[in-house]
């Protein structure tokens, strides 16, 4: 555990990529094989299920700190991170633990099945046997994700440097459904076995947002134009009469979308399709809000299946006849995809083709982009016709050209402290719009929360203002005098029963602080509703 805690400390305290890669490479060179497997698992978000819920964690940490629960909660709101708060309030002892990372994780897996008394005893014993930073890392392993600015890509690069295995090959090996408790480092990283690859997806190729003028991309004829769908990026694999559906977060989501079982025995084995999972209620593309009802569920009721079915909008073909065809030019892959689609399109599979176009001028392309909202897309994707399917986010061949966000002017009504880096500032805001109530009076109604879009300097100014203009405190939340107006941007909009305003917005964020506007000049709920297509 000591060297893993030291690694996390280094990763957490540097903003420099080179420092992080060096620290990881160095760690991979010296750690035991078991610890390496677990480290890869943790940094790629494959941690064992949480053995203890956070209510009990708070309670038991509090017992050691010997403070009232409300004081723990106040501290937590100020620190902004549960594991960090627990690590800070528990007294440090002279004890010492030499247990390895693997030993700790095995204990945590076993812990899940134990009684509350056993869990409590285990936590008390281990919290007191670790120093402050080890205690923080240990508690993080129990509570949830490490947000330490290490992407899978960065970790893969370090592992590649340490082991001498090519980065692309490693990215492929580390994907998929492996269990860190069962697999050896040899099997995971070093062995080459094709049979293991049955469920494995290819690393996704990701587009960059377009920079500057679109016309600088050259001849429009070199580009394939299609709409950028607002669903879940996915890879659908049909191999050996089995189906595997992966989301871009490298999560195996096959069970969540039983519709796609229809592909088995219809689409030939040895096929991998790159496409978007989209909600398709009443035979039409729905909103992301519709899809939300499916995302969180592991098992799906037949009622929900009927109400919100899903389809795949296919846009690329990565494997065909058991052969990796990613090296082929986009146009050739696309031809094969269209042939595949042609053969199955009349069977009624939940599969549609993402139409691509060849347009003659950048003006035509710009015009197509303006149709995005009507097409229920987020904008356009531009793919170079001659390009291979690459690994990760690379510039040059794939560009996304999103539409401008919808905007509305709203009033700041509530604020909450941020978390992590912004834990001591009020940076999470709630915004409201005007509505006329039953008595005919205008009142402010909450419509969205946003916590990004201002500069650090602006956040400090707003934070300062909030502290001076607090009306009431409710735990970590404060209501403030309605006075500041902000321009809020968002990507999509849909009616919703779950929201007080009756409307759900997609990815709301602050675009700018409207110093020039008074609250009377903010928009109304009616203005917002009029934006629904």
């Amino acid at each position: 555990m000591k060297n893993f805690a030291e690694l996390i400390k280094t990763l957490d305290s540097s903003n420099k990529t080179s420092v992080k890669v060096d620290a990881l490479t160095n760690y991979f060179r010296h750690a035991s094989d078991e610890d390496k497997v677990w480290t890869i698992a943790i940094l790629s978000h494959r941690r064992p299920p949480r053995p203890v819920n956070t209510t009990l964690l708070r309670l038991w940490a509090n017992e050691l700190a010997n403070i009232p629960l409300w004081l723990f909660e106040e501290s937590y709101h100020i620190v902004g991170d549960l594991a960090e708060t627990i690590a800070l309030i528990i007294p440090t002892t002279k004890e010492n633990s030499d247990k390895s990372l693997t030993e700790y994780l095995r204990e945590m897996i076993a812990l899940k099945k134990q009684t509350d008394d056993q869990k409590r005893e285990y936590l008390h014993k281990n919290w007191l046997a670790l120093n402050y930073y080890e205690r923080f890392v240990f508690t993080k392993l129990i509570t949830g994700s490490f947000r330490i600015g290490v992407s899978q890509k960065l970790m893969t690069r370090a592992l590649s440097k340490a082991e001498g295995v090519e980065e692309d090959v490693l990215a492929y090996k580390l994907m998929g459904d492996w269990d860190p408790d069962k697999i050896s480092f040899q099997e995971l990283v070093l062995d080459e076995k094709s049979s293991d690859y049955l469920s494995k997806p290819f690393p996704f190729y990701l587009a960059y947002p377009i920079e500057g003028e679109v016309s600088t991309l050259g001849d429009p004829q070199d580009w394939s134009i299609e709409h950028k769908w607002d669903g879940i990026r996915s890879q659908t694999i049909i191999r050996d009469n089995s189906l595997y559906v992966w989301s871009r977060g490298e999560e195996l989501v096959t069970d969540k979308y039983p519709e796609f079982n229809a592909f088995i025995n219809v689409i030939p084995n040895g096929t991998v399709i790159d496409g978007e999972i989209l909600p398709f209620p009443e035979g039409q593309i729905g909103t992301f809000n519709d899809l939300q009802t499916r995302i969180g569920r592991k098992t799906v009721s037949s009622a929900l299946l009927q109400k919100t079915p899903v389809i795949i909008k296919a846009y690329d073909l990565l494997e065909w006849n058991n052969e990796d065809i990613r090296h082929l030019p986009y146009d050739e892959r696309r031809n094969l995809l269209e042939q595949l689609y042609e053969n199955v399109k009349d069977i009624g599979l939940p599969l549609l083709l993402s139409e691509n176009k060849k347009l003659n001028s950048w003006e035509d392309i710009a015009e197509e982009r303006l149709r995005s909202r009507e097409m229920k897309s987020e904008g356009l994707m531009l793919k170079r016709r001659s390009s291979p399917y690459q690994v990760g986010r690379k510039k040059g061949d794939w560009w996304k050209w999103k539409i401008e966000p919808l905007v509305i002017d709203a009033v700041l009504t509530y604020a909450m402290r941020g978390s992590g880096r912004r834990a001591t500032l009020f940076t999470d805001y709630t915004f409201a719009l005007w509505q006329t109530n039953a008595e005919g009076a205008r009142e402010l109604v909450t419509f969205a929360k946003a916590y990004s879009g201002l500069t650090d300097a602006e956040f400090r100014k707003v934070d300062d203002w909030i502290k001076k203009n607090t009306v009431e405190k409710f735990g970590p939340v404060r209501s403030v005098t309605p006075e500041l107006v902000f321009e809020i941007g968002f990507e999509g909009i849909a009616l919703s029963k779950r929201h007080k305003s009756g409307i759900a917005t997609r990815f709301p964020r602050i675009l700018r602080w409207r110093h020039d506007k008074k609250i009377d000049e903010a928009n109304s709920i009616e203005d917002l509703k009029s934006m629904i297509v």
Partner: protein
Amino acid sequence: MYLDPWRPVKNAIITHGHSDHSRWGHQHYITHHTNVPIIKHRLGAINVTGKDWNESFVINNVRFSLHPAGHIIGSAQIRVEHKGEIWVFTGDYKTEDDGISVPFQPVRCHTFITENTFGLPAFKWLPQAEVMTDVNNWWAENKADGKTSVLFGYTLGKAQRLLKHLDTSNGKIFTHGAVENMTEVLRPMVKFPPTTLITRETKREELIGNIVLAPPSAHGTTWIRKMTPFVTGSASGWMAFRGARRRRAIDKGFVLSDHCDWYGLLDSIKATGAEKIICTHGYSDIFSKYLREIGYDARTALTQYEGDEGEVSETDTKEEAA
């Protein structure tokens, strides 16, 4: 008679030299004599009287005396006695002996007015010797990597505390002008290792492997470019929070404060024997609520700090509170 007033008054008793406690414009200042050169350096020609520890003086039938607060050199608590009723105002204070200021001495009183800058159970300091070992090891590592160590600490107090305990076998100690000037003022009172002021003529090569002491406000300025390649460190109580360090983009945080931690506050309060506690700046709402739960008659008093709850802010005044 006013204590650390923040509007100009006729008579002001000053606890210590930080600018949020010793402001400009009073007609007459009274402070500990070791603080006299400090506030003169900061405020220029002022009318000031220096007092000794425990030396009592009576103004309008009220008896005053100054007692060590251990916050920085010359920092005092103010004891106020009237008709047998004793109040103590702490100013800023810490319980650990930092090796440069006269250590804090608890004073028996009925009412204790205490600061709460770090009044949360999440704040617990390690002994100074351990933190300074970390600082010196960090310097040695940076030196081995061929880099200059830039260590931020507030100009008055923190910078000298760090200076006093730096291991000069690692190399030379360079200073930013603000730190150099203040250190010069304090040299007659404390023996410090030698320092070299960074000037226009200082060459980049001279700095490599050595350490530079600078005020936090120098972070991110053009002045610091001369240190390239450099690594930054900051010594402050706020460094206990990961978020505070990351937000300032500091490479290394050392948790070293000139204020009391949670236990320091509780132990000090107990040692005064006071039953009434008045909590000022910092997490005073939370701290006084806790004191009431454990049986004290505690309340909060408004100070100019109330607006920002003593939280991490980027301005110099609050760096001072670190």
